[in-house]
């Protein structure tokens, strides 16, 4: 199996960001977390990555309980909303980062790192951009570099926070198609956060509707439209 969270709760001060959230992402599935901003979807993603510590509940990768593990031990690929590329490193070094920090005894040699990065550059169609700095790339290119960087560590799960949020409409459409295609090829267990209904319904195998820190409904797109379980889902989907 893929990834599961069990009864996760998280408060920021007095603000309840997540309330008793349980969810399973099946192996090889592409799942969307859909909800209005401030509904806790990003927090859930960060809890899965280990960037936030939940007050209660567990995070399970495959059959391993990783709740107590720190972010750097989890091997969860995370694509940040603003990409968070290393500004002082070129494209090559950004993508190679996750390989260079592997403990020495398991670290691939430099030839292996070069070949792995080249492979990824080809995948994201940015061959020849190795020496560019992030500041010299367009939004769509940065986005793809961020993705390649996350994929370099062969993550157990891929987490994407509003992956298309900062892009203009046309690039967004192209990348969306590309991501779906990429997922169909790799079947990497993936979870992405969005507030855009079309994006969620077009891309995801299943969609999780989120509001005020808890899950409202989970289902395949058609089912959600046909049988909204409560008023919030009905209104949010406008059906």
């Amino acid at each position, binding site marked *: 199996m893929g990834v599961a969270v069990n009864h996760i709760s998280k408060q920021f001060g007095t603000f309840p960001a997540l309330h008793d959230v349980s969810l399973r992402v099946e192996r090889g599935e592409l799942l969307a977390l859909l909800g209005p901003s401030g509904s806790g979807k990003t927090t859930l993603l960060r809890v899965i*990555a*280990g*960037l936030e510590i939940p007050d209660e509940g567990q995070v399970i990768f495959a059959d391993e309980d990783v709740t107590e593990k*720190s*972010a*750097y*031990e*989890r*091997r*969860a*690929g*995370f694509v*940040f909303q*603003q990409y*968070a*590329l*290393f*500004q*002082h490193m070129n494209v090559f070094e950004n993508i190679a*980062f*996750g390989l*260079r*920090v*592997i403990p020495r005894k398991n670290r691939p040699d430099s030839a292996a790192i070069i070949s792995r990065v080249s492979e990824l550059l080809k995948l994201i169609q940015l061959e020849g951009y190795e020496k560019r700095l992030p*500041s010299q790339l367009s939004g769509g290119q940065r986005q793809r570099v961020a993705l390649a*960087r*996350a994929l*370099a*560590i062969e993550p157990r799960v891929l987490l994407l926070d509003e992956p298309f949020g900062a892009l203009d409409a046309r690039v967004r459409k192209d990348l969306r198609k590309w991501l779906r295609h990429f997922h169909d090829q790799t079947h990497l267990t993936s979870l992405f956060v969005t507030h855009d209904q079309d994006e969620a319904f077009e891309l995801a195998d299943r969609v999780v509707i989120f509001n005020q820190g808890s899950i409202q409904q989970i289902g395949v797109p058609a089912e959600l439209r046909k049988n909204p379980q409560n008023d919030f889902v009905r209104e949010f989907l406008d059906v």
Partner: protein
Amino acid sequence: MRRATADNWLVRYLLIGIVFAFIFIFLVFPVCVILIEALHNGFGFYWDTLCAEHSLTAIRLTLLVALAVVPLNTLFGISAAWAVTHFQFRGKALLISLIEIPLWVSPVIGGLVFALIFGRQGWLGTWLDTHGIQIIFAYPGIVLGTAFVTFPFVARGLIPLMQSQGKAEEEAALTLGANGWQLFWRVTFPKIKWGVLYGMILCNARAMGEFGAVSVLAGSVEDRITVPLQIEQYYLGLDQGMPRAFALASILLFLSVVTLAIKVGLEWRRLAHNIIRTH
């Protein structure tokens, strides 16, 4: 279009004139005096003064003090900036204010505090005495006093710098498997290194020039005297006091000029860097 504030040429020239007069009276003039007085008895005398036993001992001690204080405060500054920007804790605002205390307090008071703690009549005096540890009127005391005076320099520059950079890149590095050590050296440090260097240079300049705190803690023991104190000794001395004092002072002047040049260089570099970043 003429701007209202640019209208009155009288005010404009008056203000510019005042600034130039101030700079001349307080900066250019003293610098000239130092150089003229230092060379008053000729270059041979100047050189002999710098090479005199007293001068060399003072220069050596000053360098040794800076060598201890600058790394100490760099370490402290980076730790403080990291703690403030990466962790949430009670009393954070208080901590940021406390770091600046040495800027508000007279250095002499800073020195006296340490004398009260470690001095012979001080809180720990008897204990230190029986264990044969000497802090006041010795190297450790001078280091303590200097460290106190210069301790905000690195931290104060780094805190706003690191706050403005946020922690997104650090989080990305974490998810990519970097441990704390790798995170700092590969991601954080390259972003703050110029800020660190900038702070270190200011800290160094201040450390080498410190008089007040050190004058309390160094006393007047001959071989426990830093450059600024030795300048005073020369000045008070009867035999060619003025030229000797100014000769040694020219060393500190030289240090200031070098510091200023590096500081301008760093600022220029940072500016150029930002322009590249934003275009």
